[in-house]
């Protein structure tokens, strides 16, 4: 087995037994990046020197016996999380040269745990998109078939993990941006409960929806990363002060006594036949593992797309008002008046999808339309949230496809924003309700990955990881590697 294909727990075993050093592991990963990056283009900044010096420090910690399961293990971080002294672009012209003066809480925690950071990953600009095609820098390719999108917005992180350019990665998820690319690239992606992981230092997109989480090669690794990044942070006023369990304790390959609901509204019209077939097989497998499966109806699901695309752009239009060309970021200097310079800064600094969403949000919040759009969406949000609450009175978790289709072709949906928005139709409701969702590899349709989404009530990550672990152990889909 190649070192770059190891999981966190496999790498940790070798490091602990001193069969391999962090420097060797890091060199293997950097060599892999050099080999495949030209094909997949997942990484905005490769931080080779930093990685090697962190690897040396990790080896010292290991020699001294002071280490964690993440010590010395190479990782990639999505380029919307601030990393002190390392360019953080959000894949936008606006922040192309922005060097943060501080670390995001997640970066700080991973550093303390002994992370080796090999780079920052490509994404849809400001995390707005479902294919990573909205990156203002370059397009990322799906390692399973290079003419396909990797999903988005955390496309670079998903590809990086799938292609062996890192052992694990962090992504962020506002409407599916961890789970959908995880599904498209056949890796494990967890969007934790809103408030579970600190958003301090995450460049804000939609503050009531954004959440950071891990992209990993298997479910055990997801638990290991959660053990480090989850928890209260006084610097994020929406951070939940709620005890953090040892997530690895929940990894039990047995689902006897579990009640799982399958919401029929997620098996939508226009769903790929191959996806449906994979999902039916997966559900049968969960039944074999001891779970009791029952169909359930969540009728407000059909409104989630409209609710999301009013609330997220509204919050984005307010959050992105900060890019005025004064404090940091791109600044248009040749304009006449202050207003003219500000308008041109935003015209040339933002790409088309970001502008579209700022326009949409500004409209939904503007005088005369606030009640009809924004307030109405917030009320329907309540109904969607309640519907999930009711379902979790009866079920331990809900099972859906992560996406209605397999990865689509690069360029296929770029000119039709609404079609692009529909590729997140199974993941959006989960952010609206603030609940956790886990996507795990469920099989392949026409040689392309299909993800299964497991949804739970607030702070039920342990339940989701247990179901994911049992399924993964019984199927082995996580072990398949893309043909690069």
């Amino acid at each position, binding site marked *: 087995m190649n070192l770059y294909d190891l999981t966190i727990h496999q790498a940790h075993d070798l490091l602990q037994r001193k069969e391999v050093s962090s420097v060797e592991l890091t060199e293997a990963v950097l060599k892999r990046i050099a080999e495949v990056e030209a094909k997949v283009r997942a990484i905005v900044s490769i931080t080779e020197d930093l990685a090697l010096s962190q690897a040396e420090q990790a080896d010292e910690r290991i020699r001294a016996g002071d280490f964690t399961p993440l010590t010395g293990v190479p990782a990639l971080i999505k380029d919307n999380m601030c990393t002190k002294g390392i360019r953080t672009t959000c894949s936008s012209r606006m922040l192309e040269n922005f060097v943060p003066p501080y670390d995001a809480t997640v970066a700080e925690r991973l550093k303390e745990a002994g992370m080796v950071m090999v780079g920052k990953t490509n994404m849809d600009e400001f995390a707005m998109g479902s294919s990573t095609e909205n990156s203002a820098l370059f397009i990322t390719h799906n390692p399973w078939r290079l003419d396909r999108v990797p999903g988005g917005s955390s496309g670079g992180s998903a590809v990086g993990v799938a292609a062996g350019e890192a052992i694990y990665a962090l992504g962020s998820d506002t409407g599916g941006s961890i789970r959908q690319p995880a599904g498209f690239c056949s890796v494990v992606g967890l969007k934790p409960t809103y408030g579970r992981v600190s958003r301090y230092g995450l460049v804000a997109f939609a503050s009531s929806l954004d959440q950071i989480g891990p992209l990993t090669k298997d479910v055990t690794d997801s638990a290991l990363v959660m053990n480090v990044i989850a928890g209260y942070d006084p610097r994020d006023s929406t951070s939940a002060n709620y005890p953090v369990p040892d997530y690895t304790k929940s990894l039990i390959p047995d689902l006897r006594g579990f009640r799982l609901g399958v919401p029929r509204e997620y098996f939508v019209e226009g769903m790929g036949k191959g996806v449906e077939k994979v999902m039916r097989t997966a559900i049968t497998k969960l039944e074999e593992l001891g779970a009791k499966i029952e169909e359930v109806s969540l009728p407000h699901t059909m409104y989630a797309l*409209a609710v999301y695309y009013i609330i997220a752009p509204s919050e984005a239009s307010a959050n992105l008002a900060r890019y005025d060309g004064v404090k940091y970021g791109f600044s248009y200097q040749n304009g006449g008046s202050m207003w003219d310079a500000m308008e041109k800064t935003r015209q040339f600094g933002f790409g088309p999808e970001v502008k579209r969403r700022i326009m949409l949000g*500004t409209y939904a919040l503007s005088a005369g339309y606030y009640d009809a759009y924004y307030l109405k969406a917030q009320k329907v949000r309540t109904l969607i949230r309640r519907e999930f609450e009711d379902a979790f009175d009866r079920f331990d978790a809900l099972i859906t496809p992560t996406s209605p289709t397999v990865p689509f072709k690069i360029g296929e949906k770029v000119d039709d924003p609404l079609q692009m928005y529909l590729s997140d139709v199974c993941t959006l409701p989960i952010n609206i309700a603030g609940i956790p969702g886990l996507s795990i590899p469920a099989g392949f349709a026409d040689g392309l990955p299909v993800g299964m989404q497991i949804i739970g009530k607030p702070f039920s990550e342990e339940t989701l990881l247990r179901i994911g672990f049992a399924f993964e152990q019984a199927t082995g889909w996580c072990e398949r590697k893309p043909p690069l």
Partner: protein
Amino acid sequence: MKLSREEVMHIALLARLGLSEEELEKFGEQLSNILENFEVLQQVDTSDVPPTAYPIPLENVVRKDETSPSLPQSEILANAPRQEEGCFRVKAVLE
């Protein structure tokens, strides 16, 4: 509903977003199409439903009013497009 060119220009002004001629045209069409799809929300009866701003219950968070070290001025200004005498330099606000 179809957004008029004037409406698109008004929204762009509110957002302080410069748009090219081509973008004005394209966004008008795309936004109209998207908003039309959002009409579906008007079917939902929300008469007794309170709005949700945050998905989990939140309380105001306050901290003790104590001083603590902040980032040095030079680091904060390091990303500024223009600076002068320890300040962000901006274009004239009043002319």
